[in-house]
Structures are given as structure tokens and as C-alpha cells.
């Protein structure tokens, strides 16, 4: 019975010990565990997989993906950061810059401004094309004069800007997300009942809301209310009396994604685009496999 529990723990939990993290790598390959059939089964995956949207506020989206492997969740995160294309300022033609800001600094800063143009409506520019066409370029004009204080020096910059369609891996200015990150769902288990003062101390060791104290038959008993809120400061390990009472772990296949967009595309569109890009890559690979003759 205990052995089965330990195998389950090895398979689905990443355990945070006092001095290190255990069970980090995925081990459920076919043949590794006797008694488990781990061969890939699409139907089994579909039954176990689910997506729960937790919150959507304008540009920020928080959702859970349950039942997926670390490699694929990480692939989505990386694609969101570097491979979803956006439009950003690439070439700045400066005609008259009499301000204190140098040309290249101004150009760099203009490049970082997110452009509210749907990148899916544009195409990539072909290699070797010098002149922009309307399918791949946006052209803007910037004419400013600073004349607030007549005593101070006047600035005027008239740059003519071109906006190109590129991906985050060409330059970070092309990244469509303010950030995209995920964390694993925390799993806190109390191995023994904790009462009275120990319960109070335990509550202080975790983020507010994680441990709640209930009054059972006059005694204060601690209970794990909401493990999801915890940020794992591991304060428990600093107290000798509480160290062995709690098991800190994370659920290996439950990812809490947090995507914040820069405003170009809404975050749910970004996630959908990222998934489609991964599919596109697979398709390109398959086409390559089919076109190259194998011996």
C-alpha cells in the first residue's frame, strides 16, 4: 500500500525537500513502471486533459492546463514569447532631429512601442525586397515640436518610420506578450494533525489563505484550505518542530498559465496563435519527411 503511494508520488508529484527538489524529471515512459501502461494513447490523453479559464482582465489571462506534459506546456510558453509575429518599427528615417535625444536612441525607443495592428493581416517580406509594399509594411510619419517653454531650447524631430512584421526571436521588441509564464499547482499535505500554537505558527509559514484554523471540540486544528495561493517560500523548513509535519509538492501535470499581452492582440488570441504555430511546425516537418527520400 505504501509502495503504491510512493510510486504514485514519484509519477505525479514534484516534491520540495528541505535541501533540494525531488522527482523533477518525467519518468512515466513505457516500460519504466511495471503494472502501468504508459504507451501514448490519444483517447486517454483527451479524457484526462482539461483547460479551466480562471480570470480574464483585459490584457491579462490566467488559465489552467491539466493533464499535459512539461515539454508541451513549455513549448507553448516559448512560442508565446518568441514566435508569435507582431508588427513593430524597424526602419526609422530621420530628416531633422534637433532634440537632445540621439537618433539611434530615439529609433530604439520607437521600436519598442507596441503597434496596434493585427499581424495576421500582413505577410512576411520576401528576402531581397528593398521597397516595402502594402502587404508587409506600415508607414508612419512623426512630426513633433516641443514648444512648451519659450525660454528652453526647442526640439523638433521628423522621422519617417516603417513598421515590419517579425517574430520575437529576431528582436525582443517583436514579442507580443508583456510576459507569459506558468507554474505548477502546489500540493500541500499535512502528514500529522497540527494543533494549537503549532497550528498558528504553521499558518504564518504560508501565504495568507493557504492554511485555515478550525475550531474542533475546543482545540484549534490546522487544515489546508487553498494550496493554490501559496508561493512556496519554504518557511516551514526553518522550524524544527514543523519541518516533518508537512509535505510540500507540486502536481506535475497541472500548469497554471499566466499570459499578459502588450495590447496588440488579446491574450486568448495569442494562446490560440501559439498552438497553431506549433501545429504548423509539425506539419512542415512532416512535409520535409515526405519529400526527402529515405533509404
Amino acid at each position, binding site marked *: 500500500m505504501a509502495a503504491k503511494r510512493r510510486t504514485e508520488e514519484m509519477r505525479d508529484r514534484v516534491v520540495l525537500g528541505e535541501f533540494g527538489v525531488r522527482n523533477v524529471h518525467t519518468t512515466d515512459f*513505457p516500460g519504466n513502471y511495471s503494472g502501468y501502461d504508459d504507451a*501514448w494513447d490519444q483517447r486517454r490523453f483527451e479524457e484526462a486533459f482539461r483547460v479551466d479559464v480562471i480570470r480574464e482582465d483585459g490584457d491579462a489571462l490566467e488559465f489552467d*492546463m491539466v493533464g499535459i*506534459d512539461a515539454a*508541451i506546456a513549455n513549448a507553448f510558453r516559448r512560442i508565446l514569447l518568441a514566435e508569435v509575429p507582431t508588427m513593430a518599427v524597424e526602419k526609422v528615417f530621420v530628416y531633422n532631429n534637433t532634440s537632445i535625444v540621439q537618433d539611434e536612441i530615439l529609433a530604439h525607443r520607437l521600436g519598442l512601442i507596441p503597434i496596434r495592428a493585427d499581424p495576421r493581416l500582413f505577410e512576411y517580406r520576401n528576402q531581397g525586397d528593398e521597397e516595402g509594399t502594402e502587404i508587409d509594411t506600415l508607414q508612419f510619419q512623426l512630426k513633433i515640436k516641443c514648444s512648451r517653454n519659450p525660454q528652453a531650447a526647442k526640439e523638433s524631430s521628423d522621422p519617417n518610420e516603417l513598421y515590419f512584421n517579425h517574430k520575437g526571436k529576431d528582436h525582443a521588441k517583436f514579442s507580443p506578450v508583456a510576459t507569459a509564464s506558468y507554474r505548477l499547482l502546489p500540493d500541500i499535505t499535512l502528514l500529522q494533525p497540527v494543533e494549537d500554537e503549532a497550528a498558528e505558527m504553521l499558518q504564518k509559514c504560508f501565504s495568507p489563505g493557504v492554511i485555515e484554523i478550525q475550531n474542533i471540540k475546543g482545540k484549534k486544528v490546522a487544515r489546508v484550505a487553498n494550496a493554490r495561493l501559496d508561493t512556496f517560500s519554504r518557511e516551514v523548513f526553518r522550524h524544527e518542530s514543523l519541518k516533518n509535519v508537512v509535505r510540500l509538492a507540486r502536481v506535475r501535470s497541472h500548469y497554471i498559465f499566466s499570459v499578459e499581452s502588450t495590447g496588440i492582440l488579446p491574450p*486568448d488570441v495569442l494562446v490560440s496563435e501559439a498552438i497553431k504555430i506549433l*501545429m504548423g511546425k509539425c506539419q512542415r516537418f512532416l512535409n520535409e*519527411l515526405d519529400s526527402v527520400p*529515405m533509404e
Partner: protein
Amino acid sequence: MGTASMNPDVEFCGYCITHPAESKTNFRIQTRGALPAVEPFRKGLNDLMDVCQHVLNTFERSMKEYRAQREEQMQ
């Protein structure tokens, strides 16, 4: 690589990047027995496509449900 390694016929499956400056990846699949190695590679790619398609459908469905629920709560 994730879905290819979940295949019981695959004896070895791994990748390494030759040098961070050049975008080349060495990918190796070895099968046990007489099975041609292209097969689990192809199957892995197809499975990954199916996984992504399913993830996409589930995600879009969840977004729709969440928004519908929010509409109801606002009314």
C-alpha cells in the same frame, strides 16, 4: 520528442543542439527490432499535431464557456 518517446517500440530518443550560435539540432531515434526509425518519428509528429488540435479546441471551448458565464453573472 515528448510524444515519440511515449512509443513502446522506441529504444532511444534524444536531441542535442550542436552549437548555440547555429540553429541546428541533432535528433536521434532508435527503435528496437526491425521497425524503420522513420515510423515512430512520423507517428510522434502526427500525435503532436493531434494533441495541439485537441488543446486548441479545449482552450477555445473553455474561453467561450468562461465568457458566457461572465455574461450571465453581469445580468
